[in-house]
């Protein structure tokens, strides 16, 4: 009789979900981290494998993630203490939200949602576009480019989408100030670029948010 009961092994090593297993089989060194929280699985992968893994997610018959829900960017720069927040060793993450949509007509789909996170370092802000796999990634990727300055190689039309075309800086980066921009018109001179006129604020008072940038300009 062995020392460890089956229960013990289950506790120390939780059973891997099918998505993780499939990725490990096909791309052994793609996965950096697997995180389970409140029933959702989040798989952090090396950004070199984004295109391959997303394609695997769609094409594998067992996984069958047919519905592209969205993708979004997250900036982990810790502006107050330096370094990156939440123990990350990379500044940005692009989260791909894929859904296996249960289609009653064809009987396909597992009604399962998965989050694939691409770890993107600050000095190499680019990742392969997945627009050729899911055309629906077009607008969200443009939004991430606009808001975080992450470029998507292979994107058919990578332009700003929400900010004006001549805007300077990427507003959702953590080091971009909230408020205080002077309105910028055709020549594009007046938007504050990242690093210039940056103000730290707790978000509590209106003056705390805007004052120093206005003074500087």
């Amino acid at each position, binding site marked *: 009789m062995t020392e460890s009961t089956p229960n013990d092994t289950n506790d120390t090593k939780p059973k891997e979900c099918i998505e993780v297993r499939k990725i490990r089989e096909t791309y052994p060194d793609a996965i950096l981290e697997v995180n389970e*929280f*409140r029933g*959702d699985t*989040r798989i952090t992968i090396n950004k070199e494998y984004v295109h391959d893994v997303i394609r695997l997610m769609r094409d594998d018959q067992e996984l069958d993630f*047919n*519905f*592209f*829900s*969205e993708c*979004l960017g*997250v*900036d*982990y720069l810790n502006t107050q203490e330096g370094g990156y*927040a*939440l123990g990350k060793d990379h500044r940005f993450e692009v*989260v791909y*939200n894929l859904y296996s*949509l*249960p*289609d*009653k*007509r064809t009987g396909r789909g597992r*009604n399962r*949602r998965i*989050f694939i996170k691409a770890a993107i370092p600050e000095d190499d802000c680019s990742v392969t576009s997945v627009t050729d796999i*899911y*055309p*629906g990634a*077009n*607008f*969200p990727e443009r939004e991430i480019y606009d*808001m975080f300055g992450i470029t998507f190689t292979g994107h058919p039309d990578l332009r*700003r*989408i*929400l*900010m*004006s075309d001549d805007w300077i800086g990427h*507003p*959702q980066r953590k080091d971009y100030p*909230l408020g205080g921009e002077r309105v910028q018109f055709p020549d594009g001179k007046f938007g504050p670029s990242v690093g210039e006129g940056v103000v730290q*604020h707790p*978000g509590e008072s209106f003056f705390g*948010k805007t004052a120093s940038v206005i003074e500087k300009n």
Partner: protein
Amino acid sequence: MALNSDQLNTPSLNAEGIQIDPIEDTKMVINMGPHHPSTHGVLRIVLELDGEVIIKATPHMGFVHTGIEKEGEYQTYLKAVTLTDRMDYVSASLNNMAYTMAVEKLLGVEPPPRGQYLRVIMCELQRIASHMVWLGTHALDIGAMTMFFFTFRDREKLLDLTEMMSGVRMMPSWIVPGGLRGDAPEGYVERVKKVIDELPRRFDEYEILIDQNPIWRERTQGIGMITPEECYSLGVSGPTLRGSGVPHDLRKAVPYSSYDQFKFEIPVGEYGDVYDRYRVRMAEMRQSREIVKQALENLPDGPINVDDRKIVPPPREELDHSMEAVIHHFKIWTEGIHPPVGEAYVPIEGPKGELGFYLVSNGSSYPWRMHERPPSFMNLQALSKMCEGRLIADVVAIIGSIDIILGEIDR
């Protein structure tokens, strides 16, 4: 001036001596919007035309971008609820609901049954109101003006119910993490009953107006077709997806907030054209009414909020005699709530499609990242596909049938 076939087939020189291809140059680019009344807000569409046939439609947005996602990172979880109202401003309660459920998922709590039922009532009434705005404006775009007055008259009755509950017509912020800001006032249930009893007659009225109208059918049938497979890869959801024949509704697929206790059907279309999407939404209004009716009949008694003073502030009466209640009250309104470190995404079935909030928490009372999955934004990607090979007049019908709200697209 008519060109002969020789002139058409050989490249010629223009005034500046640049060689032009007469065939290629029949293309024309037209700018539609941003202040076009049929673009439902400030949306600009660049149309590439060959004669009157559309080759490509490129939407340009961002004219009403207000940085709500950025602002959300600087507000506590409780304060950010008010920001979500301003995204899709014709269905504010549903935005509150999606955001609130994401926060509750981070916290790992769920409100008691009465809270859930009241949320369902608010959301479904708001969904009917949202569909009424869509129907009125969509019909107005196509030329049926009376519909606009009919739907806005009836929508006002539904907004009155929201006002009765929350004190505000359009931006209630009444659904908050932990439950609702307050219970239904006296007489609310009776009044909702009265309003929804009248609704089927109104729906019939709408259908009599346009359903069998030959002009309406001519303008909508076979226009703006999209297949389910295209919808999947483009991330198109909601009535636009159901119009293509896919019976998918998140209220059924991933039941939340007691939706599994109500009986309702998922209306689907057949061909995925403008007419089918119109039919789906009309049927959805009736289904929403059914849900409200069932929720009112079975409305449970009891508390509406989570019993946790770290999430929900104590009731006013307790502040008079309990020191502990005063401390909780003070802490919750100065510091806010502290969800554990983690990430949560909760999708709900919004009036436009899959409406979800993605929250990243670092353990403080401010979200590290707040992101909305805007259904209109994703659905708009189908516009070019739907418009290809159609005429300019069809663009107006197609935009109306996707049901976009620019406040949500631009955020």
